């Protein structure tokens, strides 16, 4: 049996979400912007989904801008939020979907600590260097699982750059935090459906009332002129369904998954000499579903291959367009030594993860590491 431990990349859709989207791929296919009954039916489905999602994340329906996913939401946030000619500020451990747009507008990048937290002194310094239009600091890091203290960071932003919009990339946070309270300090946040049991290709940027947003994608004026383009009706419906299930299950799943994660990590730390937990031993500040290790003396690329042969799917750092494993800018930002980051391994769990997944990983990973160490790779 295969063990899928790459839920932070994506996971299987919830069957209920698949079921919910199917009618909108067939008989209820209409364009929600149309002027006939079937169009109104599609529009109603989008409106219902918008209300449901808004309710789940502590926003008003009008705040929800449906997009094609997390990357589009982040780009729209960095390029479109706020007014004036101030710059963008983010942290060095952000996803490239935030980091690259910030760099492209000549923004400022704030360092993080060894355990992946945004350095608040550096943040206030960066905010004081000149006018700031938007600040983006992620809720949960996609590689290490580190959860940011957004309330504390928001205080720094409000104090040092009161006119800046505070955005958070909450893409990895949905299953592991109560988004409504976790994102309460933020003016805007990004979501992606496939990270919580929904389909790929749909997400949302939630922008609170009164927060200025300039559209990037112009056309038919959908999403209240904030994101033109015919809505992905089936995807939006499925996203709301998956969000509801994830939110309903959250408190139970948090305990279940954290227990699996602990068994996985403790088992590996015991069986793999010198392996370390990348973001430190305090797991309470990290998402329950993400386990990140550094294993000195192995190369993750080779390790992943042996894991794959043992039917364990995991990931190292990020992958580039060609599919090659690239060194992790997140680990670099945390100052993880190269001999450690070369052997980075991310094992991430989700709603479909079971005890068996953990058992198999524990059976396959230690001997694979031992083999590579024997060969000096």
């Amino acid at each position, binding site marked *: 049996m295969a063990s899928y431990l790459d839920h932070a990349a994506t996971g299987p859709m919830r069957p209920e979400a698949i079921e919910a989207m199917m009618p909108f791929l067939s008989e209820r296919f209409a364009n929600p912007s149309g002027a006939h009954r079937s169009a109104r039916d599609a529009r109603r489905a989008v409106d219902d989904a918008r209300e449901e999602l808004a309710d789940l994340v502590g926003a008003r329906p009008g705040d929800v801008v449906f997009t094609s996913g997390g990357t589009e939401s982040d780009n729209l946030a960095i390029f479109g939020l706020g007014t004036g000619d101030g710059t963008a500020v983010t942290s060095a451990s952000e996803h490239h979907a935030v980091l690259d747009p910030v760099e492209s507008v000549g923004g400022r990048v704030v360092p993080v600590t060894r355990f992946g937290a945004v350095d608040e002194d550096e943040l206030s310094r960066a905010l004081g260097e000149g006018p700031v239009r938007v600040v983006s600091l992620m809720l949960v890091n996609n590689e290490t699982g580190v959860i940011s203290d957004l309330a504390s960071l928001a205080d720094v932003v409000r104090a040092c750059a009161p006119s800046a919009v505070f955005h958070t990339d909450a893409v990895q946070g949905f299953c592991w935090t109560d988004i409504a309270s976790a994102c309460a300090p933020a003016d805007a946040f990004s979501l992606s459906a496939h990270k919580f049991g929904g389909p790929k290709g749909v997400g949302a940027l939630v922008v609170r009332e009164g927060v200025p947003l300039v559209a990037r994608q112009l056309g038919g004026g959908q999403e209240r002129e904030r994101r033109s383009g015919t809505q992905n009706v089936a995807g939006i419906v499925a996203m709301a369904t998956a969000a509801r299930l994830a939110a309903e299950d959250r408190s139970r799943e948090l305990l279940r998954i954290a227990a699996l994660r602990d068994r996985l990590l403790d088992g590996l730390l015991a069986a793999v000499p010198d392996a370390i937990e990348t973001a430190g031993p305090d797991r309470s500040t990290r998402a329950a579903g993400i386990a990140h290790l550094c294993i000195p003396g192995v190369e993750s690329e080779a390790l992943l*291959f042996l894991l794959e042969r043992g039917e364990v799917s995991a990931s190292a750092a990020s992958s580039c*367009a060609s599919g090659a494993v690239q060194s992790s800018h997140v680990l670099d930002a945390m100052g993880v030594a190269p001999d450690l980051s070369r052997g980075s391994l991310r094992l991430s769990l989700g709603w479909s993860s079971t005890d068996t997944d953990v058992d198999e990983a524990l059976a396959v990973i230690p001997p694979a590491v031992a083999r590579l160490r024997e060969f000096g790779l």
Partner: protein
Amino acid sequence: MQVMVAMSGGVDSSVAAALLRDEGHDVIGVTLKLWGGDSDSGCCSVSDVDDARRVAAQLDIDHLVFNFAEDFDRDVVEPYVADHAMGITPNPCIECNRHLKFDRLMARADALGFDMVATGHHARIVHAQDGRLRLARGADLAKDQSYVIHMLTARQLERVLFPIGAMTKEEVRARAFALGLRTATKPDSQDVCFISHTGGGRRVFLGDRITMHAGRLVDEDGSELGGVDAVELVTIGQRRGLGIGIDGRPRYPLDVDVAERTVLVGSADALDVTGEMLHGFTWVDEIARARCASAEGLAAQASAHGDPIPVASVTETRAGVELAWVRPTRRVAPGQSVVVYDGDIVLGGGLVSRR
């Protein structure tokens, strides 16, 4: 056997993978991501990886990408730049084969449990009369690549396969056509893969990394014949003339002194030398080394597709391997490789030393 095939996304390695699969091996295709820099232009661009992946899919074999960019930088690109800064002209393809394809990749293939590594090189592995393995020229002499992989030892050859080495390029393409591979008509790769031709070529690539220095052209008699705008870009022995001598005839670079910003030039005759000193020499094995005691029938090749030049002697000295030509021969730029052949068989090769 479990075979790891290095697939560049070109037609040769595509067909190599196909042949191995058809022979019934357990084949996996691997594309090496070697270069991710700003001037990413050639061998490892995303479109080549796409080609390799799609060919693998057509062949129904698995395909992986290994990121060796850090090694490539350290073992190929940085030495390439450093050599030029010293007026030396390296062959980065040889260093890539030495360090990446037949060192790094083989070590990884070992660790991952593969029996063999295969590539799409036009070269053959043959059994010598004594049963030992020898690297031989590819059947298609015009495409022969034994020169750029001459550093393979007999021990390494035991773990390597060159499935298309016995085929002509035409046969390889015909095979690719017959299989309907998307790489069937893809042109051969040219020149140094990490240098973009649209981006200004070698001059711009090196100019971004080292300071170029203008220099004087000095004739053998000491007279000055003008200047060059970058001594680092002068290749000793190059066929393109540099300046005109007092006798009205073109001059050619005999030596480069980067520190003194000077290029010593001479007439075409002065380019010819009686031999070359080689360092970093790799013998295929001890038998090959012993074979060189008599130079009878030996020839050496000084560029990828250069003609083999008859050799009068191959002598090991403390400074390296000294090669004497049968007749005066145009000097080879320091940093280039010279490979010694017995007929079609590679015996070994080394890097040309500075005079």
